[in-house]
């Protein structure tokens, strides 16, 4: 078997007030694979992403990417040094920076000319060249979404984490943005973990789907397998 890009092993995480949100979560993601995590709200999906990103520190377990330990019993790499992209629910664009400023934010230590070039390339690839000098509040929901993705992708991460990336969009924009995101991810050969509670989103973007419940991954299978099952029981909540 090929070595996975990301391997999460036996993660445990509890909030200060006790209840365990992750209770031994394990999952793997291959190079350029899109894994969708589904599950009821409160099952720990978002916390799993935050632990992989390093925004939360799990009490036990390990996160390894491309053979390097990001989190284990001895070491903890801070989020800013992990080289992982994150698209937040609600996007968290910087309201005081333009589209250009938002995208350039993460490009540290490059000469100015190269920085400008990278930003320009990225703007072109997500089709936002004309909006480069706008502020986030002057953009539509779909455009904001693309800025958030471009902002992460410009750093060329091996792995993207996306928390409910389509949830704030209306149905039409939603399917457009979904197609667009997949095109960008595939073009860059970027692996991704996408958290959603929407089955349709899951079908459209996933290579594999992981079902999560009570802080554990209960099942991982190719999207097609879930699809046949879900069409048989169309009304069951994910």
């Amino acid at each position, binding site marked *: 078997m090929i070595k996975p890009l990301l391997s999460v092993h036996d993660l445990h995480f509890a909030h200060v007030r006790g209840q365990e949100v992750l209770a031994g979560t394990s999952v793997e993601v291959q190079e350029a694979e899109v894994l969708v995590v589904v599950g009821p709200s409160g099952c720990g999906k978002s916390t799993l992403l935050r632990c992989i990103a390093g925004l939360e520190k799990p009490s036990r377990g390990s996160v390894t990417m491309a053979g390097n330990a990001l989190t284990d019993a001895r070491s903890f790499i801070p989020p800013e040094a992990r080289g992982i992209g994150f698209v937040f629910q609600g996007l968290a664009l*910087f309201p005081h920076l333009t589209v250009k400023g938002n995208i350039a934010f993460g490009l540290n230590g490059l000469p100015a000319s190269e920085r400008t070039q990278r930003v320009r390339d990225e703007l072109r690839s997500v089709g936002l060249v004309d909006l480069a000098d706008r502020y986030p509040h002057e953009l539509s929901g779909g455009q904001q979404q693309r800025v958030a993705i471009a902002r992460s992708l410009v*750093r060329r991460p091996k792995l993207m984490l996306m928390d409910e990336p389509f949830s704030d969009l209306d149905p039409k924009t939603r399917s457009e943005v979904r197609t667009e995101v997949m095109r960008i991810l595939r073009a860059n050969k970027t692996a991704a973990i996408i958290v959603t509670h929407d089955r349709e989103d899951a079908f459209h973007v996933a290579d594999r789907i992981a079902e999560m419940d009570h802080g554990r991954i209960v099942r991982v299978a190719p999207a097609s397998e879930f699809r046949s099952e879900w069409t048989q029981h169309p009304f069951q909540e994910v």
Partner: protein
Amino acid sequence: MHLPQNFRSRSIIGGLAVLMLLPLVVVITSPFHASAPEWDHVMRDILPSHLLETLRLVGLTVLLALLFAIPSAWMVSTLDFPGRRLFRWALVLPLALPTYICAITFGSLLGPTGAFSRAISANTGIHIDIMTWPGLSLVLALALFPYIYLPARVAFSAGMSPHLDAARMLGGGAWKRFFRVAMPLARPAIAGGALLVAMETLNDYGAVKYYGVRTLTAGIFRSWGGLYDVGSALRLSGVLLLLVISLITLERSVRRRAGQESSHRPVTGAPLYGWKSAAAVIWCIVLFAVAFLLPVASIALDAFRTMKDLRFLQFLPALGNTLLIGLLAALATILIAVAFAFAERSSTGTNRLTNWASIGYVVPGAVIAIGVMAFAGWLTHVTGIVIIGSIVLMVYAFSVRFLALASQPLRAGLKQQPKAMDEAAHLLGSSPWRTFRQVNLPLLRPAIIAAALLVLMEVVKELPLTLILRPFNFDTLSTKVFELARIEQWPDAGVPALLIVLCGLFPVLVLDRLLERRTR
């Protein structure tokens, strides 16, 4: 719907609002109605120097306050180190010290003949004198920095966690997160706090008088009490008012340039280790010790000394006066605030007027006092009624100054009562006034009590307005403290000063709790 009644209540509300705005109108229009025999001298010799000293004192004070407040707020909000939760609220406490008490205490310790200065000079030969304008800025900044610390703490704690997380995921280290994300986003909150620091500096009289710094407020006192020229005092008040208005305009323009959404995920503090953790702890301890523990300990020690021989009993009349004036002012202010709240609730169409009427809170006490006095003088001239030098005038001036303070809790309390409740009462045949009296008002009781306490505590601390408007031989705790400091008997003022500080603690702690509830 109830036309005649609506008209009547409109006139009452309108009349009250005009009464609240009158002192300011008197000040602004003074060149047209008040003769100022000494104005040539005042304009030539007092205004330029006083304006310059005001500007540099305000500038340096705000700068130092920012320097104390922002790192502290950032540390207790986004980092984790031993004692962080304690410092989080402890650093608010310096606000309990009125500026003049803080300044005089530091003067008594670090002035040319201060206890610490003498000890240092005896041991090292270095002469220390804090009683200069930069020294005063430092002391004022120590007393006032929580005005910036509090809103900055709220901004850093709650509003921006998703943006800070996003910055981390984009590779932003701690410095970059602070300067490129947190500071721009917190700018409106910080600007608001800085404005309050500037206002308090402009408002202060006791500290600047004691340190011999010539601010506009000191100039007003000099024109009024030294030159006996109310006209010039009014014009200087007008200049001070213009300064206040330009500061507010400046703050608005800073505020407009950034908007902030809020989120409910509290920021998790990034743990600090080793020397970084030690540095954070030392910063907080030193700031808290110098800004709060040191002055309070010094006052408490003085108070303890005077308690032994019952000298403090001489303050009983002043305490009585303070409580009397405080209660009357609280009562009057609450009545007006309730009337305005009712008007806003039943939409009598006077909202703009009642909003304007609360402007007194940003106006320095001396300006209000001079305006009120000029108005009372005119009243005597026209009707023969003498109210100058009476308690009535003080109560009136305090209502003008503290109306906003009383209105805020009432408005917040009323907002929590659903409109449907009023509508239900109307459908049951109750008039708007009866609905307000029997439904809204009883539910508002906690807010009214809180508002009354806030006004009472502020009156206890207040100095410049009290000094100008008090009747002859009418001493309050604050005027006593100031008098004793002026005749170099500061240690005797321990007991009243301590009482004032204790009074100040209450609103500060309430404010801290309220803001914490909003961030959690």
